[in-house]
């Protein structure tokens, strides 16, 4: 099966970030396990119908984040020891940081934020089973 990513033109994020997000999803879902050889940059660009430079940029971001390793002349692999759990935590932390940022912007103090979060958790009807 050829690897192909699904991008959206109405997504306001830069294209390379969409690529980064989708690759993270694939790693989290276990589609691309540890040590998995990523498609070559040209291959993925052609399959996804985006420029080579977009995929290059995404790979270098993923490399900086420690999610993939690139060996000169031999392509990129999903890094060993990138647990799916660790990645999920990392993602969640990212969302929490955004939440805090938004709270600051709207001038909401910690106490109110905690109350609102508690309320939201209460209203959520079916919490997913813990792992």
């Amino acid at each position, binding site marked *: 099966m050829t690897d192909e990513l699904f991008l959206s*033109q109405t997504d*306001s994020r*830069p*294209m*390379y970030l969409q690529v980064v997000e989708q690759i993270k999803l694939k790693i989290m879902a276990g589609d691309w396990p540890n040590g998995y050889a990523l498609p070559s940059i*040209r*291959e993925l*660009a*052609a399959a*996804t*119908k*985006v*420029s*080579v*430079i*977009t995929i290059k*940029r995404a790979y270098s971001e993923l490399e900086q984040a420690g999610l993939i390793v690139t060996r000169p002349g031999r392509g990129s692999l999903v890094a060993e020891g990138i647990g799916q759990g660790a990645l999920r935590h990392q993602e969640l932390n990212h969302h929490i940081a955004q939440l805090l940022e938004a709270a600051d912007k709207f001038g909401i103090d910690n106490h109110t934020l905690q109350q609102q979060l508690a309320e939201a958790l209460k209203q959520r009807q079916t919490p997913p089973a813990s792992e």
Partner: protein
Amino acid sequence: MQNVIQLTDINKHYGHFTLENINLTLPAGEIMGLVGVNGAGKSTTIRILMGLIEADSGTVDVLGHRLPDAQVTAKRQVGFASEDMRLYKYQNLTWHMDFVQGFYPEWDADYAQMLLQKFRLNPTQAIKGFSHGQRVKASLLLLLARRPRLLILDEPTTGLDPVARSEVLEELADILRDENRSVLFSSHNTHDVEQLSDSITFLHDGRILASEDIECFVNKWRSVRCTGHASPTALAELKPAHLRQNGSVWQLKIDNFQPSMLEAIKAQGLEVVEVMRMSLEEIFIATVKKDTRHEH
């Protein structure tokens, strides 16, 4: 890496239009989008590249060959298509394919067959019965099956319906698989350019406003929304490409954006609500409008 296109200090003067100091470099294996409004000089630039027009001054190198002297050698490996290209309307596509194949021994018959299927073209129907989209796809098929090292396409997606456009873009993307092949295409559809191009050359009024890596180009711009009360003249000192105010809400579109500019905005008494990246389309419009404003 070899440059497949190298335009150096090109000038071309017409009565009402001047192409001024055009410098353009396309490295092998890359896709470059040439953007600009109608009349910006895109087609003139492409015609100079193809040796159809001679520049008043400057040099043109295509695939390492100097034009116009080595034109014939260079063009064997170039596939060129423009809107005014005509097919023989009383002949069908099979006839055209045989015709082109006769000139180009590198013709790839299997690839041509695959493109026929992909583009959903009927090879036995006379061209006069083809729609505009079918004609564009037929011309592209005739070019692609030669597997030229350099494709130069003038407005390949103009006038196509969304489905035909996506079919054409898919085939252009497929060329990326081969690192020895390169594409230069002009378009005023910024989405097409944004999606596929490694680099962008932005022409306006016969001059190049920018020619660089597309990500770098887009990343220089920000749209900043602020609230509060400030003096428009003080804000104009930041030299925004675009500055608008409605009540207490302000919008600035800034080229060569630096985070320190936000401090300068705050110093004017405004609160920064949002700092957003801009799409190529927004940048395109902001740039062209800014330029027009300065002239009049």
